[in-house]
């Protein structure tokens, strides 16, 4: 239909122009320009990674095809598949997923809506890097066998399309499940557990490889056979069969891959069609009002030695954290990492020279990691407050008190994590020596105030509205990502240097002494910075309120 086609093309062009205008308008402010520079730096890092992947994919695919080992091509396609699907969910901080459903108020045809959704997905970093990887494979295959080009192109384009559609399908269905707060929280916890279990695959495999059993070999053989019916295996098989001259078999694999892509596309269609028809996923529709008996209001928490406002902020922060399942689970990551290292390479390294001499370095490492996992909380501490930020400005409490309350919560979590890490290290590796234990704790008194001071500054300079109870569709400020990275490199670098010097002089008690001096400086820096917070918050209030209170 000519009228419909014209409208669709016009709409797509308009949306592209809209995205461009949003980008250009975002550069009007100084902060927008700094964000752009930070984004370029992050993008360059991605580009280098992409180039590395491209080179590796080209070299290996050339090698496999040139040496008549094209059956090994799925080895390259599986990582592309995993990266394409898992990265967008993992690295929501680096990705930008505009909400296409906002466009539904306009007279958009369903076809346009569907295409826009795919187009948004195609500009995702994972899609870009995945496509670069596929391009590398195509190049390698073509160099090794130029006649395979059209066939490999068809197979890899189908495989790319499959990945693109699958990624969008996963996000579309996740959105459905994330529409309600309760399911959001449950899914968030499940997601992190999934990610954690994913981390265990490496160490477990290495462990099994170290002690291969007939059962393990059989399992690997079965998995190798089984992978052939999955898209990466099918795409690889389509090219490999063509390389062997078995075009009909290759075509069957390609047809199968195309069918799977169509089936996944149908699932996406089911979801998007409901969105297009204007389904209501609001909380109100999902949760009928509960009728509960009124309860007496409990007393707020008391924090001896601190003002009521500091205690109130501390309590509020703790309650927020307790209701943010995914964030809470993240805070236990140091313990989990200790377990992973115990199971995996570190357990083998334990017998190496370094850890034989200093087996209790695991505790400083775990303590440093405990500080690292606080990054999101410390460096964007007003993010979860959102519109509540107005309350802080309207109340008579000063920002010194507000940030002190927040930092006390961070310090409590850090201390609890350090104690748990000490116990875990003691259980997995044997108790750390007193010198290392004291050195690490004093080291935290150096590292934490510095991190908190930097975090408080960035929380006011570069705030970003966040909901730590969910994942997905939330972007961290690129400025914060880079600056926090820089601060942590300096802080951990100093910490590592202090322990290295102590080891050099064969006296680990040097570490607590040096850290003590550094801690005094660090605390002074923290106090000075905290003293500036109220004036800075007042100075930055318009930016803070505009960023955090937006709908």
């Amino acid at each position, binding site marked *: 239909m000519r009228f419909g086609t014209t409208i669709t093309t016009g709409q797509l062009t308009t949306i592209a122009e809209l995205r461009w205008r949003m980008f250009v308008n975002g550069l009007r402010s100084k902060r927008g320009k700094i964000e752009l520079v930070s984004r370029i730096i992050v993008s360059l890092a991605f580009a280098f990674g992409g180039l590395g992947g491209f080179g590796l994919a080209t070299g290996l695919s050339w090698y496999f095809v040139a040496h008549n080992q094209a059956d090994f091509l799925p080895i390259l396609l599986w990582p592309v598949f995993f990266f394409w699907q898992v990265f967008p969910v993992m690295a929501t901080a680096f990705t930008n997923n505009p909400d296409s459903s906002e466009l539904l108020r306009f007279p958009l045809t369903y076809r346009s809506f569907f295409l826009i959704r795919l187009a948004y997905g195609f500009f995702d970093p994972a899609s870009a890097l995945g496509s670069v990887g596929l391009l590398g494979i195509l190049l390698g295959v073509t160099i090794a066998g130029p006649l395979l080009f059209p066939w490999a192109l068809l197979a890899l384009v189908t495989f790319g399309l499959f990945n693109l559609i699958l990624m969008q399908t996963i996000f579309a269905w996740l959105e459905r499940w994330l529409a309600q707060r309760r399911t959001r929280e449950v899914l968030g916890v499940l997601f992190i557990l999934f990610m954690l279990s994913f981390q265990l695959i490496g160490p477990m495999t290495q462990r099994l490889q170290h002690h291969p059993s007939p059962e393990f070999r059989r399992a690997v053989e079965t998995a190798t056979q089984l992978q052939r019916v999955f898209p990466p295996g099918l795409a690889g098989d389509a090219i490999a069969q063509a390389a062997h001259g078995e075009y009909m078999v290759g075509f069957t694999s390609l047809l199968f891959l195309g069918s799977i892509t169509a089936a996944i596309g149908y699932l996406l269609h089911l979801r998007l069609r409901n969105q297009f028809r204007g389904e209501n996923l609001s909380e109100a529709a999902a949760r009928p009002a509960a009728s*509960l008996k009124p309860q007496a209001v409990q007393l707020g928490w008391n924090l001896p030695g601190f003002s009521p406002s500091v*205690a109130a902020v501390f309590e509020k922060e703790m309650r927020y954290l307790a209701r943010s399942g995914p964030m809470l689970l993240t805070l236990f990551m140091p313990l989990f990492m200790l377990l992973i290292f115990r199971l995996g390479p570190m357990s083998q390294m334990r017998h190496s020279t370094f850890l034989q001499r200093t087996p209790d370095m695991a505790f400083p490492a775990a303590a440093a990691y405990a500080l690292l996992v606080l990054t999101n909380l410390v460096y964007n501490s007003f993010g979860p407050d959102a*519109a*509540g930020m107005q309350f802080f400005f309207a109340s008579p409490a000063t920002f010194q008190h507000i940030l002190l309350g927040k930092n006390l919560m961070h310090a409590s979590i850090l201390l609890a994590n350090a104690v748990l890490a000490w116990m875990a290290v003691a259980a997995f590796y044997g108790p750390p020596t007193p010198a290392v234990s004291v050195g690490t704790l004093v080291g935290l008194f150096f590292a934490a105030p510095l991190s908190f001071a930097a975090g408080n500054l960035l929380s006011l300079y570069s705030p970003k509205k966040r909901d730590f109870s969910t994942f997905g569709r939330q972007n961290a400020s690129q400025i914060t990502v880079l600056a926090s990275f820089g601060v942590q490199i300096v802080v951990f670098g100093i910490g590592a240097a202090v322990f290295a010097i102590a080891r050099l002089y064969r006296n680990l008690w040097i570490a607590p002494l040096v850290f003590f001096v550094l801690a005094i400086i660090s605390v002074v820096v923290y106090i000075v910075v905290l003293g500036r917070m109220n004036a800075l918050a007042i100075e930055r209030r318009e930016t803070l309120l505009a960023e955090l209170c937006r709908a």
Partner: protein
Amino acid sequence: MDLAPTISTQGLTRRFGELVAVDGIDMRVAPGQFFGFLGPNGAGKSTTIKMLTGLLAPSSGRIEILGLDLNSHPVEVKRQIGVVPEGMALFGRLTGAEFLSFAGRMYGLDRETASRRAAELLDFMQLADQPKKLVTDYSHGMQKKLALAAAVIHGPKVLFLDEPFEGVDAIAAGTLKSMLQGMIARGATIFLTSHVLEIVERLCSHVAIIHQGKLVAQGSLEELRTGVEAQTPASGDGSSSAGEKLTLEQIFLRVVGGERRGEQELSWLG
């Protein structure tokens, strides 16, 4: 006797780049007044209330609340005022009781008083029946009631409300109105902005109208009525039949020069 004003501004101005959103406002609100601050969209109402409550810095001018300069004594002023800003300023992941207790303590109440008042307010606002419900799961009307409860938990002498009745049903609006009238009866001063002129007419004793950043009228309803009638003969949409009092809507339309564009033809409109 002319009482010292509870709220006064002198030459209050706010610029956003080249735009002058609020242009040299001189305003006086006497103690115990229920003061309505009106204006068309984009006139500068929200900008003014944000400046009066410390949420936005003025470009120039002076604000005094209860005789204290807001710029030099912000904390002392904030202790004595309550605010329901445009975005309601709620913490979504607390329960209503937790939020009110938190708000009370942020305003310097001790734990016992904060908790007791929180319970009383929840009961008064009919929010006590779902104690475990998080604020984020409240309906819009419930959130408005909670925001007002948080603004009054410390017993403020002055209350600033930005569109308190927007999106609130008749039942919730009734609860809010009775609470506000009770506060006025006990000597508090209330400054509110609203687009609903009927509510302002019914509740407020004094009104100011802002138009294109400038204060174009200020006084009691009767003073405004007299002033408008003296300045312009009754005509057009702002007219009233002989003997009938002008409504606030008619006064408003005359003061801001509101023209209804009924005659203008949009021929393409179905």
